[in-house]
């Protein structure tokens, strides 16, 4: 028996989410008495990078370096994962609930006839044959505990839900042939575009977000400056993306992206229920709004009642001083 994880990498760079799933899987294996944690890597990743997954408790990495995997096809990646899951007799498979996980996990659930809980936020409760996983539902307005009734279980873990703690183990890297061929790849990737040099929003630990209170796109310079001092990603409310002040991929909320960073700073955002739905699971929320009655203050940990055009530059200055003292 074993717990299998999927190595998520972009051009050979292993994503932080993979380390989250590795640490999570390590704990799941202990809780469920499920043996060792094994990782499957598809495409080209350096052996030393793969061996470093041992830091999070992975004992072996199966590496299928067939170049067909360097372009993402959900069907081909699913097929390889299913072959690996059977080869290592996996009783649990863990993926990240990010864009690749969302494409693979549901396919794998069908292929392995294994119940899937997606967007899991906590470790499973295991008792006898019972296996229950908590996930966020109603766009962050509630949690639900799902029992998985099948022998093999699949969990896709919400990004930023499980801490990465590194030891100093080393995983053994083994060559693996999943039997997937070019004929299994149905999509032809034309190009990939990196959205920005900054941190991708879904995995960001710190987020600075702004709304209609900023009055126009020309005023986002101060938001970007604050974000860059913090090393934070930028986000926005829906109307701001709708009128193209900011790109669509920054839209957070019930109909945008759901995020749960360690710190969410909301500037000039009223805190409508649909906005809160996507951000309320953030660990710490700061609200800056000139209206003391703005509903967002009810969902905040810290608040500043004031004009963003005055408060934000002062806050940025204070952070600069803090950073220079703590550098």
């Amino acid at each position, binding site marked *: 028996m074993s717990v299998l994880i999927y190595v998520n990498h*972009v051009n050979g760079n292993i994503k932080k*989410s993979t380390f989250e799933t590795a640490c999570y899987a390590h704990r799941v294996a202990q809780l469920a008495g499920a043996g060792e944690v094994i990782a499957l890597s598809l495409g080209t990743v350096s052996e030393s990078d793969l061996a470093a997954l041992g830091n999070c408790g992975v004992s072996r990495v199966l590496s299928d370096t067939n170049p067909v995997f360097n372009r993402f096809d959900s*069907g081909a990646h699913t097929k390889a994962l299913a072959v690996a899951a059977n080869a290592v007799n996996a009783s649990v498979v863990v993926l990240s*609930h990010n*864009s*690749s996980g*969302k494409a693979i996990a*549901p396919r*794998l*659930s*069908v*292929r392995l*006839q294994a*119940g*899937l809980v*997606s*967007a899991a936020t906590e470790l499973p409760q295991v008792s006898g044959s019972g296996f*229950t996983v908590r996930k966020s539902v*109603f*766009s962050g*307005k*509630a*949690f*639900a*505990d799902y*029992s*998985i*009734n099948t022998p093999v279980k699949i969990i896709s873990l919400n990004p930023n839900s499980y801490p990465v703690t590194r030891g100093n183990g080393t995983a053994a890297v083994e060559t693996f042939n999943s039997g997937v061929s070019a004929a299994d790849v*149905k*999509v*032809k990737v*034309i*190009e*990939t*575009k990196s959205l920005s040099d900054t941190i*991708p929003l879904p995995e960001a630990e710190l987020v600075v977000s702004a709304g209609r209170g900023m009055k126009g796109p020309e005023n986002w310079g101060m938001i970007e400056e604050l974000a860059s001092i913090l090393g934070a990603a930028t986000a926005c409310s829906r109307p701001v*993306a709708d009128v193209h002040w900011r790109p*669509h991929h920054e*839209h957070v909320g*019930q*109909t945008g992206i759901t995020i749960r960073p360690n*710190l969410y700073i909301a500037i000039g955002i009223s805190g409508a229920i649909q906005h809160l739905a996507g951000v*309320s*699971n953030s660990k*710490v*929320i*700061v609200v800056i709004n000139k209206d003391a009655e703005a509903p967002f203050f*009810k969902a*905040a*940990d*810290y*608040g*500043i*009642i004031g004009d963003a055009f*005055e408060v934000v530059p*002062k806050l940025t*200055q*204070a952070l600069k*001083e*803090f950073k220079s003292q703590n550098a």
Partner: protein
Amino acid sequence: MKLLVCISKTPDTTAKIAFTDNNSRFDTNGVTFIMNPTDEWYALVRAIEIKEQLGGSVTVINVGPKDNETVVIHKALAIGADDAVRIDADPGDAFFVASQIAAYAKDQQYDLIFTGKETIDYNGSNIGGMVAELLDLPYISLANHLEIAGNTATITREIEGGLEVLEVNTPFVISAQKGMAEQRIPNMRGIMTARSKPLKVVPPVPVAAYTTIAYYELPPQRKEVKLIDPEHPEELVKLLHEQAKVI
């Protein structure tokens, strides 16, 4: 082009979320239901636009009880779908719903099957991938742009930290998100004709419950907000560092 759009019923975005029966069931008391926003705004509208451009038909499919005809199906027909299928069952988990859709679609030769990126109630993002695997079709998730020429589609989709442009041949399954299309408000003529459009009711196929929901819980209430003097944002920096320990 023969297009199928999977539509789901969800609580309205402002609905109060509460539970009954020892927190084992969602309390629908006083809740207004709507068509899941990404299904309506992006999947359905883009399917209708493609039909308008290339000809063909748009069918919507919903797994759910009879009420769903008035709550979601009529609206989809009013916006511009040509006909509808309702699988007459209470939707169980994602695998149950996907199995019903796949069982119906199997012999229908759809060129394209759409879903929204995820529902706003169970937030799984599962149906599209499951339907694709059940029908052995390519699955393109989280797409924000789709163009079709002949039997080749060019799609932009979200990947980690970026976007990917890809080509794929029909038939395939696609999940649609923001950028795909703009919301359409049904017009009077649409609303008038919706009731006379064909609606087929199909019995469900038997499917095992892979997962069941045992318990619901509301998140803990946040403590009262701590207000900081706008003249002294360095206080906030200090609290974020020393108290909240997030910077």
